[in-house]
């Protein structure tokens, strides 16, 4: 036997029975929701040229790569939005906007060893491409909330606006590397380090004062008031006001209890260009939904267009839902005598339409079938011969 014959690579998993069923159920609900909201499905290949992702916010280190027969670098798709931008820019560029697209396919990412993270992640998400503006922002967030509602018992979606942070940081006379550090401190709510870093600039700059407060600016509606008080005039204030109108509209739609605000959402600032949002679910230690507006992505494919969307981590949601385990076993097993196959399968079809889960016995004798049924905990045996008889089986738990 070879060394790795019986195991899977780290970060990759087999899904069995109930695990599969929960995941498929999550997928089906999301897919039918997206379809009914006018989104059309796109499937892209698992392998893409590395060139598609060279401007991606994902680090090259996190991509699984291989070399094709001509020596070119390929990657296992590390994200869904970028390949879809490629498709739209090449094959759908003459279609009437907006394009409402959805996908339901895995992404592959190298995660740190022994961290308990998955390297193959089932993602289901939407892209709204071509028109941009407030209505699309509202639709994206409302669809995200609808998606979580259909699959997660308890959840919140958190909204932010990347424009606030970008305006503030761009106004500071600082090296890029220091700006990167400030962003990281805000992202990890590292108040102490942020304060120490900004102190030298603090007295002179309103932007600095605002940046210093940024990690605290999360919570409910009251965040807007606090933010507007410290925001310098101009674009920073406009970003907050824009977010507030989106927030108010969502509240009018009755979604207030599902949303909250965090102006400190500052990841992937070179990718997102406006509203950003994240979804959290009770029982999951990581965010389960990521989304936002990324109006610059299509530029790199030669067809500048506004776009927004989100992706749901189907595996993370399914893992939480799978904890309530239902039984995997069939309701009954059907044994048939030689020559009664047709009758047996007809009988099975009839029972299936009444909602039962049936198995046909693989064994040649009733005794073997009974033994098997007892081992599996199946409580009913139907024997199909000249007549059909039903037998109750005693199952010890």
């Amino acid at each position: 036997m070879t060394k790795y014959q019986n195991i899977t690579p780290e970060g990759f998993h087999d899904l069995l029975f109930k695990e599969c069923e929960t995941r498929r159920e999550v997928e089906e609900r999301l897919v039918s929701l997206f379809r009914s909201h006018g989104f059309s499905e796109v499937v892209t290949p698992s392998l893409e040229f590395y060139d598609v992702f060279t401007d991606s916010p994902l680090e090259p280190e996190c991509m699984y790569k291989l070399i094709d027969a001509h020596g070119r670098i390929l990657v296992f798709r590390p994200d869904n939005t970028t390949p879809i931008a490629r498709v739209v820019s090449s094959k759908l560029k003459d279609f009437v906007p907006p394009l409402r697209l959805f996908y339901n396919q895995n992404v592959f990412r190298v995660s740190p060893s022994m961290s308990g993270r998955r390297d193959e992640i089932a993602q289901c998400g939407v892209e709204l491409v071509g028109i941009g503006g407030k209505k699309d922002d509202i639709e994206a967030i409302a669809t995200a909330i609808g998606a979580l509602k259909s699959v997660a018992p308890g959840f919140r979606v958190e909204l932010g606006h990347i424009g606030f942070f970008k305006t503030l940081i761009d106004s500071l006379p600082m090296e890029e590397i220091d700006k990167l550090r400030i962003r990281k401190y805000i992202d990890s709510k590292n108040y102490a380090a942020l304060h120490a870093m900004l102190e030298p600039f603090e007295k002179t700059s309103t932007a600095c004062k605002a940046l210093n407060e940024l990690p605290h600016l999360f919570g409910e509606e009251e965040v807007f008031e606090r933010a507007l008080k410290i925001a310098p005039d101009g674009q920073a204030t406009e970003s907050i006001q824009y977010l507030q109108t989106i927030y108010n509209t969502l509240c009018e739609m009755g979604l207030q209890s599902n949303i909250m605000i965090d102006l400190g959402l500052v990841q992937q600032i070179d990718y997102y260009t406006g509203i950003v949002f994240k979804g959290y679910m009770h029982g999951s230690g990581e965010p389960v939904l990521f989304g936002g507006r990324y109006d610059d992505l299509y530029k790199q494919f030669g067809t500048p267009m506004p776009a927004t969307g989100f992706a749901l981590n189907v595996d993370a949601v399914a893992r939480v839902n799978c904890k309530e385990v239902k039984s995997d076993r069939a309701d009954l097993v059907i044994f048939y005598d030689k020559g009664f196959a047709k009758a047996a399968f007809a009988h099975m079809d009839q029972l299936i339409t009444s909602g039962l889960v049936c198995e046909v016995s693989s064994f040649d004798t009733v005794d073997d079938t009974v033994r098997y049924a007892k081992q599996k905990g199946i409580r009913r045996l139907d024997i199909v011969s000249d007549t059909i008889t039903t037998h109750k089986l005693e199952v010890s738990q």
Partner: protein
Amino acid sequence: MNPIRIALTKGRLEEKTVELFQKIGYDCTPILKKGRKLILPIPNGNMEIVLAKAADVITYVEHGVCDIGIVGKDTILEKERSFYEILDLGFGRCKFALAGPKGKSFYTGYRDKCIATKYPKVARRFFESKGMDVEIIKIEGSVELAPLLGLSDAIVDIVETGETLKQNGLEIIEDVCPVSARLIVNIPSMKLKKQQIEPLIQKIELSKGE
């Protein structure tokens, strides 16, 4: 409401954290008389304390099985994981430093230097920021031995008083960064349990100022 679960680094930080919790009014008897129990409820607060090794504190918080963790910056820098790093608690102060045999110059010559350390990622980043090629060897125990035995040119390690370095004929070549105890929070917990977590953080922050 489910209790907030706090992962505490066993050992030195544990004592200091218990002092801190007592100061803000929590009954810490279960921690002081813990015996062999690993999950300890706090009687007058809706919270549970989990005692763990530093690196595990980070793992538990990152995966959300603990909401809050108290852990040294040294471990945070080495693990590079994602969570909120909310407070510098001010205790457990020391620093990362590059140290080598006394009187021997480190930054000269063209040969790639060899560095022994318990913190390979911290060491790697430090030399990357200098644009300097080095060979890093991971050591599990007393790192000071490596240059003495001739395995490495220098070490990157935590330095508190500098006494161990001195007694072994080593000296600090350069400071890498300061270290102290931090309060970290799982990201979804911060959002979904804000009403429970924020007041606790505020209490701790206020008591620090006293």
